[in-house]
């Protein structure tokens, strides 16, 4: 190949590729709105707060950003709004060893942020983040009634037992040693805030008494 031929191939080939990219971009832009819920004013306000505090400097969202803190794409799917708002305003008041600093987020800003995070959790991401395919093997051991209720209400979104589960609340591997009174657990589940000062745990008052008792029975066995 002559130098000139190589040059022409480079110039015209690249232009062609770029044109294809522009066409695909236009097509994509036309399809995005069907793949995500409507953007309300609150969602937009939340996005602006996201930029204001440079959340992306620690977190990823849609998997892009910094790798210092958990991904924010599906946060609101497993954690209730009440908990998240308290956390955003002052992380260490509810989780003393949190690596997230208090940034000065106001209540309104936190509210908008949640709205934004709910929006992002509903974007069609082609199935990302994937379900942990090996997790089933680790959790499906024969379960007691209390254990099943623990799974049903996704307590492990915030609590760890034997290394599995989230880290938003205290580890429960030895919850029974720490608090052996089943009554206390029922009271705590029904209304955490009146049992533990400043608790950010959501209440489970909507559970039936049987469920609450079974859960408490299970918790006190964790020694």
């Amino acid at each position, binding site marked *: *190949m*002559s*130098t000139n031929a*190589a*040059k022409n*191939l*480079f110039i015209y*080939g*690249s232009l062609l*590729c*770029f044109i*294809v*990219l522009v066409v*695909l971009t236009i097509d*994509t*832009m036309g399809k*995005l709105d069907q*793949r*995500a819920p409507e953007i309300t004013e609150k969602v*937009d306000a939340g*996005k602006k707060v*996201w*930029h*204001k505090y*440079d*959340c*992306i*400097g*620690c977190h*990823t*969202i*849609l*998997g*892009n*950003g*910094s*790798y*210092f*803190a*958990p*991904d924010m794409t599906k946060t609101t799917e497993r954690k209730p709004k009440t908990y998240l708002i308290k956390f955003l305003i002052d992380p260490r008041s509810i989780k003393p060893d949190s*690596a997230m*600093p208090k*940034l*000065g987020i106001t209540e309104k800003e936190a509210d908008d942020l949640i709205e934004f995070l709910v929006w*992002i959790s509903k*974007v069609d*991401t*082609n*199935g*990302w*983040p*994937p379900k*942990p*395919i*090996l997790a089933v093997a680790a959790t499906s051991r024969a379960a007691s009634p209390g254990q099943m209720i623990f799974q049903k209400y996704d307590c492990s979104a915030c609590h760890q037992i034997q*290394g599995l*589960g*989230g*880290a938003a609340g205290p580890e429960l591997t030895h919850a029974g040693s720490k608090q052996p009174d089943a009554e206390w657990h029922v009271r705590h589940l029904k209304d955490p805030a009146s049992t533990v000062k400043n608790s950010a745990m959501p209440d489970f008052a909507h559970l039936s008494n049987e469920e609450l008792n079974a859960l408490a029975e299970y918790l006190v066995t964790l020694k």
Partner: protein
Amino acid sequence: MRYQSHKIALNFYTAAVLLFLVQVAVGIIAALQFIWPDFFILNFNTIRTLHINALVVWLLLGMMGATYYVVTEESETELWSIPLAQFQFWATVLAVGAVVVGYIVMGLNPQANMEVFGTRLLNEGREYIEAPRWADILIVVSVLLFLFNSLMTVLKTKKFTAVQGVLLGGLTFLALMYIPGMFYTKSMVKDQFWWWWVVHLWVEGSWELIAAALLAFMLHKLLGADVKVLAKWMYIETGLVLFTGILGLGHHYYWIGTPEYWLWVGGIFSSLEPIPLLVMVWDAFRTTRETRGVVQNKVGLYYTVAHAIFNFVGAGLWGVVHTIPQVNKWTHGTQITTAHGHLAFYGAYVLLILSMMYVTLPLIRGAKDFNQSRGYQAFWWMTISMVFIVITITGAGMVQAYLERLLGLDYVTVKADYNLWFWIFRAIFGVGFLIGAAIIVKDYFTIGKEKAAAVSGAAERA
């Protein structure tokens, strides 16, 4: 000094190496914050912003210095306007300084990051392009002045060499690709879509064009290789870079809310991206083998060939392993990405700019002979440390992908418990890298200034 204009190139180089040192020092703070989050008065996000912005800015400054040098050499004339270049240099330094102060203020008091005319005053809150809008505009003006000055220089003598064409073409592409990052979108999906135009089309598009052009320039300078042959291979390389890289952009559109066809487009084209990088390695070796002249500046050639190799390893290999959707689904947004980011930037661009400095500095300062041993020392301190940082972080990434993505363990648990030792080792190797970078800076200020006797004395001892 053949041309007065080369003084300007030196200004840019000086600012670049100093920022390099800052970047690495700040990287170590970031690494320590993985172990102790409250290690420093500024939070991790501010430190990280400083780390990656310093990186991008010093590489750009290095490219500008290199370009001012190349353009005067190839056009065989002084710059069109030296005062304009001087002004552009100081204006850039001032603007960068203001942005840095802004980041620090925002880090100390996030409320200072006010909204002004619909944009943020101090920090835009978008990775890599954190610089606020007013700074974006200044950056664009600076780059335009720089391009204008370079272009007018070429027009002065009308020696349209292939190297100048691709170099200035790449820089123009670079300037244009900054624009998609300069407007606000309400949708986070669109935000990231356009953000990747900037980030990806820079490092896997325009910057690779600049790298290919500078590679050809350096091989010619060092070895006296035939310009025609170099030019032909340069066009083949840049052609392949863009045929694979432009649509390879799709590897960032798998999971951000964009349609499914990007899985095919991105997967196929980005898998081919290592090919041009391999051709560059071959190009460097072939040219070295075929030209039998005595190489004066051995350390310059060393860096040039190392750049080609690590460009391929860091960008090509460490990129391709996680680029197909079936793999990326599990590794996306994990430490695997960090490992790749470090080796790619180091191999492709840090070594590129350092090679340009080693090739041109002795020429600019008129040092026929200089103590080359420091250059090798710096190289090995940096390269061994970087390779170990990357191995460490690849390990952390594999543990993270397995425990978090496959087993469903919590992010915080994996980071704080399972990966702790990886963070500790990264910080230690970071210090090794800092030593290498410090030797570079020392060497930069020494080359061509040491007395001849001291040089030969050192050479005998070496």
